[in-house]
């Protein structure tokens, strides 16, 4: 938890976050974002003050919400209708390797 007091975000960290988020940016954008992140994260540290004995983390789901696993009507043509690049009924995706 020693990192909790730290508020300065480094350029490397911005690049790592952008890469994880699948976003690319120019050096100038990186620097602007770095400054914004630093000030916003600094504000977020308000939650440091939440007492350790304070609230818990709630579970918000109950088992009564499960439904039967059964086949229902679907609309494959409608769903495929919005695919930007297709080959027949196949979805074209970027290469993986």
């Amino acid at each position: 938890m020693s990192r909790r007091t730290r508020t300065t975000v480094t350029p490397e960290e911005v690049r790592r976050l952008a890469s994880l988020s699948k976003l690319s940016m120019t050096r100038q954008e990186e620097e602007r974002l770095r400054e914004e992140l630093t000030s916003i994260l600094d504000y977020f540290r308000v939650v440091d003050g939440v007492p350790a004995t304070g609230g818990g983390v709630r579970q918000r789901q109950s088992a009564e919400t499960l439904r039967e696993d059964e086949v229902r009507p679907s609309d494959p043509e409608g769903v495929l209708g919005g695919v930007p690049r297709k080959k027949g009924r196949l979805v074209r995706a970027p290469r993986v390797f």
Partner: protein
Amino acid sequence: MGRLAPSAAEVARRIADQEISCEDRVASRLDRIPRMDKDVHAFLSVAKDEALEKAREIDKRVRRGEKVGRLAGITIAVKDNICVRGMPATCGSKILEGFRPPYDATVIERIKAQDGIIVGKTNMDEFAMGNTTQSGAYGPTRNPWNLERVPGGSSGGSAAAVAGGMVTLALGSDTGGSVRCPASFCSILGLKPTYGAVSRYGLIPYANSLEQVGPMARRVEDLSLLYEIISGHDPKDSTTSRRTAPHGRRPAGVKGLRIGVVKELFGEGTQKDVSRLVLDATGELEALGAVVGDARVGNLGYALAAYYIVAMAEASSNLSRYDGVRYGASVEKGNADWNEAFAATRTECFGAEVKRRIILGTFVLSAGYYEAYYLKAEKARDLIRREFERAFKKFDVLLGPTMPVLPPKIGEKVTPLEDYMIDVNTVPANLAGFPALSLPVGFAEGLPVGMQLMAPHFEEERLFTVAASYEVRA
């Protein structure tokens, strides 16, 4: 203007009784849209032909003596993050350009089942991330009361369409105030229902644990009618409750109702005129017989940070689905690999605020920071919920200003953090899940001011009672 117009229920009755034609009624409302909207820009798309066709079909059914729904002939605008089969759903983003959902959201199915007329999709902050309706990819919406001012957001298009008399009703979505803020800035009513009261199936997600679809209207009666129609359990949304909509338990009036004024909602950033008008309205409720007292809600100082941490964390996960492969926009990038191709589409098609929130959300969820930010925020959330539950033991309804400030000017330069700050009064209801309603309480410098009413979970009826008593007080 809207106050004297007949209620939605009255219009539907007149249509059912063949006193007026549904087609004439709908056509007259549709005629107003281009006249008003050339300045306001509330709509991103208008489905005029479909609306008129539906109206003619209703007229035919009436003539055949068939029963029509409770929203027959009522024009409704829908925020562009709620799926209507065959209509665009851009979420105010370039990344969903061209996307037409092949299905209806549950709320839309329910509106259609009651013969409501969906006239179009409304402008919003991109992916509902904002409070001004300026951040979308399709230009800002302007406040119908003052075209130099923002209408609030993120459901600003829906609010402006209702306030400008372009439609009778609208749907928005409220993740941290996105129904109540524009309702307040546009001098209309807006409800953020209890979490789990209204289905989110077909609402394009931003922060699932916080958001609800909410109705917007000019009259309390219309607001509660639309809420009644869209609420209720939905097998397609496992977070909807089976104990929703306790219709018929509405208190008769405010006499004897215990109303708590939450001091913490009149913080240092609150403009004097806003405080004054909200306190004046509280005085009027007291004159009507409400028992008004001061309420204290502790730990609210954590609310804004906790809200943004949770919302951004959920957003970073939700928005990872936009890859340019299955729907929406796709940037062609030659022989690029999987990661490069995703990044090309996302980088070009997401706006600045969306990128900022995705990256911040990724940060607060990443190893080493999760405990310090996300987990603490969830703890704060639980603490705030318990504080409100305590306050609701003493009071039936709590109130304060919806927004601490008057509607800002369009294009006003503020930092992201300054922008987040004006959500301070609306986020607690999303964190804690209870219902909250904004109602107009007057104007300062010619600009609308709204008062926020809050009630315990599933006690929307109390909010309608207080708002209705205030509405007819004169």
